[in-house]
């Protein structure tokens, strides 16, 4: 029952719209089944499966809006929910920034759904976990991991004739392997729409190698280093930067894209010319939900029904687009694209191994952790390396090094680019491994 077909979803949405008496009405309907399994100390700690189907109704009178949600679907309950939304709307204060709803839209048919993920069973999760745990037990290593899979649908409709439906699936897997004496730790993470592309065994083997190779780490002096950031290391910094590309904040003067004396830095070259970042809902490696508004595992877009389309955010180092709320786009008289559900950074053809081979002196970083903003103006972030940090000399990994704290801005980092490798999917983005010079490490950590 949790997953409805397009026809079933449309029938319910039309019925709800039929009950409405408000000026405008928006209905969102989504359902999913999510399963998870967690393990630590080489043993399963928790596992579970939940399913949910819920419907939200937003009623609007003038510039007043109210939302009510429900997870019961008989006619009386649906009608009651519409009445409740209308009652809340009447009591709400006016929102001067309210923008009338969109009419019918055309949505892309993106490849967010996979049959194999949809069919995951508790036995499948147990087997995937065994494939990860068993090699660790064999080698006297300690595994802690987590796998979560979702299959779901999302449908939206409104009183102006808009309707959209999408199905999506997703799997997140992460694994930390530690040596028995606690001196080494390795990590790997994978996220996919299609579980047949996931091997928990292969990912675990990477984490195992890193755990074994990272014990007896040596201390290097903090300072500026050439680093190779694996995608699992750079993903959060990039995501944070993309999350700061809101046009309103830039126009208001409180963004890294605000310009001295007013205005924004749209059209300015802020990064190395090899930096090109775009989003493309149709990319087979990183399919995105065709519209925002809940349900979709890797969806985004603000939930106002605007279609997701291919957008170039940064091209050859130049800021090409920022994203807009509908209110701000209208106020500024621009088309105004919604925020993306995920981005793709262009890279080269080199593998991670090639990047290492071409490095005289540098540090390989597996993962950055506990990343927090220090200064929103410069996008300065702090955080630490974790689970596999190695010194490279003459094109070879020489020895593991103790973890560092960094203080660095992705804007500075993407100006100090040395080389880019072939993009891979990490944390819902497609990102190349990057070689960066003068990356700022400010202190040492004893953490393993």
């Amino acid at each position: 029952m949790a997953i409805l077909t397009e026809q079933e979803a449309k029938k319910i949405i039309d019925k709800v719209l039929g009950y409405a008496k408000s000026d405008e009405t928006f209905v969102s309907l989504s359902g999913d089944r999510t399963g998870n399994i967690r393990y630590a100390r080489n043993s399963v700690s928790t596992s579970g499966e939940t399913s949910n189907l819920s419907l939200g109704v937003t009623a609007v009178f003038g510039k007043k809006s109210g939302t009510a949600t429900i997870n019961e679907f008989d006619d009386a309950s649906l009608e009651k929910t519409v009445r409740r939304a209308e009652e809340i709307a009447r009591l709400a204060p006016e929102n001067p920034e309210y923008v009338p709803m969109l009419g019918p839209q055309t949505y892309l048919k993106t490849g967010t759904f996979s049959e194999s993920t949809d069919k995951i069973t508790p036995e499948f999760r147990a087997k995937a976990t065994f494939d990860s745990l068993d090699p660790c037990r064999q080698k006297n290593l300690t595994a802690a991991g987590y796998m979560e899979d979702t299959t779901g649908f999302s449908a939206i409709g409104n009183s102006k004739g808009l309707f959209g439906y999408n199905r999506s699936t997703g799997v997140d897997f992460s694994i930390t392997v530690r040596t028995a004496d606690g001196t080494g730790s390795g990590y790997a993470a994978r996220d996919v729409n299609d579980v047949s592309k996931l091997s928990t065994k292969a990912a675990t083997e990477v984490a195992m190698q890193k755990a074994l190779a990272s014990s007896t780490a040596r201390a290097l002096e903090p300072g500026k280093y050439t680093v190779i950031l694996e995608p699992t290391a750079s993903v959060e910094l990039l995501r944070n930067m993309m999350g700061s590309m809101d046009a309103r904040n830039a126009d208001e003067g409180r963004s890294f894209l605000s310009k001295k004396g007013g205005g924004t830095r749209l059209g300015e070259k802020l990064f190395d010319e090899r930096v090109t970042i775009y989003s493309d809902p149709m990319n087979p490696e990183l399919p995105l939900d065709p519209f925002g508004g809940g349900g979709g595992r890797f969806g985004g877009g603000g939930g106002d029904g605007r279609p997701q389309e291919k957008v170039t955010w940064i091209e050859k180092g130049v800021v090409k687009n920022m994203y807009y709320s509908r209110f701000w786009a209208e106020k500024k008289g621009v088309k105004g694209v919604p925020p993306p559900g995920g981005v793709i950074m262009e890279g080269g053809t080199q593998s991670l191994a090639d990047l290492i081979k071409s490095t005289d002196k540098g540090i390989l970083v597996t993962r950055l952790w506990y990343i927090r903003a220090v200064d929103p103006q410069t996008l300065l972030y702090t955080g630490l390396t974790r689970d596999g940090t190695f010194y490279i000399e003459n094109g070879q990994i020489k020895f593991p090094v103790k973890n560092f704290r960094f203080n660095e801005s992705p804007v500075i980092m993407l100006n100090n680019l040395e080389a880019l490798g072939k993009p891979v999917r990490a944390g819902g983005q497609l990102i190349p491994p990057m070689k960066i010079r003068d990356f700022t490490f400010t202190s040492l950590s004893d953490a393993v």
Partner: protein
Amino acid sequence: MNRRDFNQLIGMGAAGILLPSLPAFSRNVSPESFLESGVDVATKKRLADAALNAAKSKGATYTDVRIGRYLNQFVVTREDKVQNIVNTESYGVGVRVIADGCWGFAAVVDAKSEADTAKAAEKAVAIAKANARLMKEPVQLAPQKGYGEVSWKAPIKKNAFEVPIKEKVDLLMEVNASALKNGANYVNSVLFMVNEQKYFASTDGTYADQDIHRIWPTFTVTAIDPKTGKFETRNTLSSPMGMGYEYLQVNPSDKVTGITTRYNMGYDMLEDVTAAAKQARAKHSAKSVEAGKYDLVLDPSHLWLTIHESVGHPLELDRVLGYEANFAGTSFATLDKWQSKNFNYGSKQVNLIADKTQVGSLGAVGWDDEGVKTKQWDLVKDGTLVNYQAIRDQVHIIGEKESQGCCYADNWGSVQFQRMANVSLAAGKTPLSVQEMIKDVKKGIYIIGDGSFSIDQQRYNFQFGGQLFYEIKNGEIVGMLKDVAYQSNTQEFWNSCAQVCDEKDYRLGGSFFDGKGQPSQSSAVSHGSSTTRFNGVNVINTARKI
């Protein structure tokens, strides 16, 4: 709900999300419905007994049932606009069992009948039995006496849910207007209110009905200097509290005066935002800090977060044992350090206490989520590590006979596990005021309010920012600083603790959003302290050019 969801909900998220993502399974309701009483206690007992009996008949050796009604209200504004008013309610039942020596858990939304709760109990037993073959050793649960039918209510004076929305909107509009009048270009303000109505029943014979209230008034003001193109912000100096609306009805005795006014058990939002707007403006002309070693004088509105990260988390036994290795991390405070009985966590001045009973704190409750009566206990005594935070299935590992009562689930639909108690630094025993403390500092920085925070996965190396920084030279505050962050190592930092002000300066800080676990759960926790001095801490300059 985690911190990121909250930021999105209130429109402070960087992405400016338009529609709220609500807590799992919660539904939007009208604010009036908050005042309706939920399911009565007799019905809850009947629903719980049905689950206890069903689990037992399927072979469970232990069962607990949590029936929860969770109410949230947010009033979200910016400048002269109300952006969002959100009222949510979530009701359901979670059943946890031990069968074949293994935990199992199942939950049911909107459980109305004994058949519903019995079905959840049976599912929990089936899950426990299925997972039992993956266990290396059976769960060892510390015995717990039953307390019969008991109840606990947070000692609030005014239920925030009874205060009309209009009054809340009017307050925030007045707050925003004052910010704009006093030098801010932008202001975001929020009132966030929570009521957890929790019923717990277990096969030990406890039936505990509890009513918990929390409130958090918060804001950010932004001041822009068009000439330089720079912006500065100042966040609230309020603290989320385990209190009702009385937190906003402030008495003069709740205020701590000084270089800026700080607050104790009552918060003057209008006064604070007025000061904040002026201070955000003043930050533009503040001196950029010179990196180096400074003696730090840390206000409780700042120090709570350092305590949270560098004491609260590393002394959670599940982290020490490795259960959080893949996510939150492990801990430097390993069992051998505790067993040695001479591990110097800090200097002799450092006494750190865990407490689930402190009045007005976020973590206060009568019984925890596995039926253990709450209490206070020492974690670090006169500088030495003496204990951890542990729950019923862990205490045998540290040789204790009973749980310390810090088990919590953030929802009826989440499985309970070990969470942080309120962890606080005891006030100094010798009379000492903030003025007297500052008088002795030759080269220092006085830090007020929490800012950026980051710590490694074993809780050694950390870096903290703040809201307000004042330079101290030869015992005097000489002006405002900016671009300040300090970096240290937990053990080194707490051993550099030189002085703690007396109890007259003791105040609580805290967080609504302490995240842990996969899937992640949030918990609310307070941390108290008096103003404290730490000598010779490494300060970095965070200014950059892009």
